[in-house]
């Protein structure tokens, strides 16, 4: 053996010479910043939950969820949330009836058919739709879709109606569905497509029978997220669908949704602590729970396809 191989005495020169407090502090600050998002969720839960609990101290959960009259401004107010849920449901159904076929169709076209050059132009153009403020969509729904287009098709239509809000909301959601679906289709390994082509399948057969089934969980995640966005959208319905709670399935009538109730009541000058003030939070809680469940389903589904193809 040779000179330096036995352990020498003294302090290890490789140990940390000076403590690096700065590094530790920085890491602490970064962790703290990351917890802001946790506090945001916590803040949302607390801020909807506490007034809601007070609300349900005065109005029973059963009355809230299962009765059909929502008249918080009446002398004798009633808090049956079903008309708002119905309004949300009708408008969301119209929106997804527009957005799912158009969004999925756009995604298949972009992913399987468009040339790379066409894709470079078409995709960002479509995504401009996602960048248009919702108040602009609301204005367009009311002023153009209802008063220029729909009145000529349905003469009896009300100025504020669910149909125009739903249609425009559907267009608004197309980029969400198209973009997420396309991501899912892009993640399908090329080998699967090649396999189908090698068997003599056409592009259409390959897209419909190979790519879509393989990307299904991602596509469903896109649908779920799109529906969640439709349920949570506020400005379009506030402007174009009116503010009248209406327990109906007729899309030509005006109706109020959960979101537009929150917006209308919250914008007014309601006294803190009044039952009307608390009702904002009760409806907010319902909205948050519904969208939270849908978001979680969507996150799970996305994770599933990522795991499958990585």
């Amino acid at each position, binding site marked *: 053996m040779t000179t330096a191989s036995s352990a020498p005495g003294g302090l290890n020169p490789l140990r940390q010479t000076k403590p*690096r407090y700065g*590094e530790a502090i920085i*890491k602490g600050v*970064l*962790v703290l*910043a*990351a*917890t*802001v*998002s*946790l506090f*945001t969720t916590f*803040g*949302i839960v607390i*801020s*909807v939950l*506490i007034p809601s609990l007070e609300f349900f101290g005065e109005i029973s959960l059963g009355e809230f969820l299962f009765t059909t009259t929502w008249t918080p401004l009446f002398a004798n107010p009633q808090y049956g949330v079903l008309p708002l849920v119905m309004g949300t449901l009708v408008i969301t159904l119209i929106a997804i009836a527009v957005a799912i076929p*158009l*969004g999925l*169709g756009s995604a298949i*076209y*972009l992913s399987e*058919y468009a040339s790379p050059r066409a894709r470079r132009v*078409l995709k960002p153009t*479509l995504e401009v739709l996602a*960048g248009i*403020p*919702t*108040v*602009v*969509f*609301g*204005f*367009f729904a009311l*002023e*153009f879709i209802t008063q220029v287009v729909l009145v000529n098709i349905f003469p009896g239509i009300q100025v504020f109606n669910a149909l125009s809000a739903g249609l425009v909301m559907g*267009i608004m959601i*197309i*980029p969400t569905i198209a973009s997420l679906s396309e991501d899912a289709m892009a993640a399908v390994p090329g080998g699967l497509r090649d396999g189908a082509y090698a068997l003599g399948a*056409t*592009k*259409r057969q390959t897209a419909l029978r190979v790519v879509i089934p393989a990307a299904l969980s991602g596509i469903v995640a896109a649908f779920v997220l799109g529906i*969640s*966005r439709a349920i*949570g959208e*506020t*400005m379009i319905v*506030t*402007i174009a669908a009116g503010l009248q709670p209406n327990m109906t399935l007729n899309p030509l009538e005006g109706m109020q949704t959960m979101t537009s109730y*929150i917006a209308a009541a*919250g*914008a007014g000058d309601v006294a803190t602590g009044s039952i009307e003030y608390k009702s*904002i*939070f009760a409806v*907010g809680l319902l*909205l*948050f729970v519904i*969208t*939270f469940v849908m978001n979680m389903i969507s*996150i799970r589904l996305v994770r599933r396809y990522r795991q499958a193809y990585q």
Partner: protein
Amino acid sequence: MTATLTPPANPEAVDLRGHGQPVVDKAFRWVLFLCLFVGIAFLAILLAYVTIKGWPRLDSRLWTNMPSIRRPEQAGAESAIFGTLWVIGFTALFALPIGFMSAIYLEEYAKPTSRFARFVEVNIQNLAAVPSIVYGILGLAIFARALALGQTVITAGLTLALLVLPVIIVATREALRAVPQNIRHGSLALGATQWQTTWHQTMPAAIPGMATGTILALSRAIGEAAPLLLLGAVTFISFNPTGPFSAYTTLPIQIYNWTRESREEFQVLASATIVLLLVILLAMNAVAILIRNKTQKRW
């Protein structure tokens, strides 16, 4: 040698010409294109409609006059323009540092196995999809009432900051992830600490991507109206904000207010304001795209 071609016994079997269902395939392709076309056509009609409708009011009155209920021909959106600047300024002030730091923690510091980091990640994914009106409820309950900040610029800025935080975090993480690992390793191999590496090497290399993501996030905040409805922006404001605790209105809110007026002049004014808002957003997006294109593919 000459090869003679023997005709096949069954000519059908070697017919390589297309057969089957060409019509169906072609129709399918057209239907798909139509799906895409609907969205794009809608966008074109929307832009044309607001521009034509707003054209008569697209002049200096729009940005030099205050809103007015009684005299639509003199009304403008000056207070909304300044209100938007104030609110977005505070949004950026709160959201950018926290967003960047969160992203750096998740991307550069957290171990992939860290449960805390994974929890934060799922939480951010969920927050990104929480309806914006719910953030309004948060702002109303916590900032406006519990912290007694009232219906002010700062309440709006804080609320919108939380709203766009997930967008900034996701975009910053992507920008950091695009910096090649060997840059970090080169720095660490010289005896640089984790933070020195992040500060001197990774972040400067990621700045174009971070800038792009940030601009897109802020342009979302500029167009956002729903949470502000709960935060006092709807009240009639005919003065510019004077500070963080001032009352305010913003462009989307001003548009909303005008859509509620029945007189046609106000609809024209709303259209003109929409054009102004869209031009601002378009300019921001153009800058973002410019930064992205200018710095693409450096490694």
